[in-house]
């Protein structure tokens, strides 16, 4: 991962100076990295949309990358920001399958990925908040179904989603 980080950072610095070839490779590599990054927490049919949103954000905000700092934590912060934004918007009941290829994930996991992963953010939520967001915003259940499955009241589900998303927004740059 150290070499991947160094390579991506070098390509990003080149892209900022106008190197189109480096930029094309960087975006392709980032696209693949983002797809892996989202796999555990985003239903498969939504991953492409989310990756595209992040790529567009990277393009629009590429000046915000400070060449003196590492690249992947910058990309991960944008990925988290777009993901929390996505959770606020998405309320779909028909796309519930998570593509969980943990063999592939585990083989590529390393310290950097672990530190910047979405799981870390979920770990900072209370159990009830994490359950409410997982059931309603990720798996696409209705509030009533989520209340039934989790044993929480419907009001509690709504409150936990609201508070949980607010907390996630504040955790975007947190690594611990």
């Amino acid at each position, binding site marked *: 991962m150290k070499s991947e980080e160094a390579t991506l950072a070098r390509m990003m610095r080149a892209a900022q100076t106008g190197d189109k070839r480096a930029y094309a490779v960087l975006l392709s590599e980032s696209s693949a990295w983002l797809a892996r990054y989202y796999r555990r927490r985003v239903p498969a049919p939504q991953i492409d949309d989310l990756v*595209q949103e992040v*790529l567009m954000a990277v*393009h629009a*905000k590429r000046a915000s990358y400070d060449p*003196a*700092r590492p690249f992947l934590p910058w990309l991960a*912060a*944008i990925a988290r920001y777009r993901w929390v934004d996505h959770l606020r918007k998405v309320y779909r009941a028909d796309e519930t399958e998570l593509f969980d290829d943990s063999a592939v994930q585990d083989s590529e996991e390393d310290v950097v990925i672990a530190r910047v992963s979405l799981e870390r953010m979920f770990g900072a939520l209370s159990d009830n908040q994490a359950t409410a967001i997982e059931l309603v915003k990720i798996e696409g259940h209705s509030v009533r179904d989520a209340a039934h499955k989790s044993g929480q009241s419907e009001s509690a589900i709504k409150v936990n989603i609201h508070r949980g998303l607010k907390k996630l927004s504040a955790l975007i740059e947190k690594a611990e």
Partner: protein
Amino acid sequence: MSRVNQTLIDSMVDDMQPVAPLRANYGWALVAAAAAIGALGVWLTAGLWRGGYRGDAEAIFYAANGMLLVLGAAASASAVVMASPGVGTRHDGPRWGMAMLAVLPLAAVVSALAKGSTGAILNDPYGLECMAHALVASSATAIALTLWLRRGAPVNPRNAGMLAGVAAGALGSAAYGLSCPIDTLEHLAIWHTLPVLIGGVVGRYAIARVLSW
């Protein structure tokens, strides 16, 4: 990779132009220049209090203005860095600075209550004027930080806005402190710290609105 992603990447590569990266050093220099403009404005419009730089003022005068300056520097440094996000970046320093500054009004209120002289706080004839001047002096820093953050990608716009407001309020108040000859604890602790509170609230609710992306 999906065909849509590849098409998107191709179009972005076609569209790509060189950009000047947001280096934190540039941001800090920008804030320093804006704060200097605020201080220059105070000097030109209200003049400097000679007692302050001759060493005639009470110790609390230097302590309060020094605390405002340190808080302004800490909040500015964090706000500048927030334009370039990164997982693992911490922005806890200014919170400790804010807690440190909050000791001043608390001390003033406790002291006034103990002496039975709360009127000295509430009936300060120059308080509102000082606060208004400090807010005007903070405007250049507030504008500079807002523009800087809008160019960047703050992933916590509320916090970034609040820190920009706190930084502007603290630096503006420290700048106006060069001109204000009132060096009592009650005056400095209340009327020279209120711009920080106001800046933070305005930043949290107003500046944050223009920082979302």
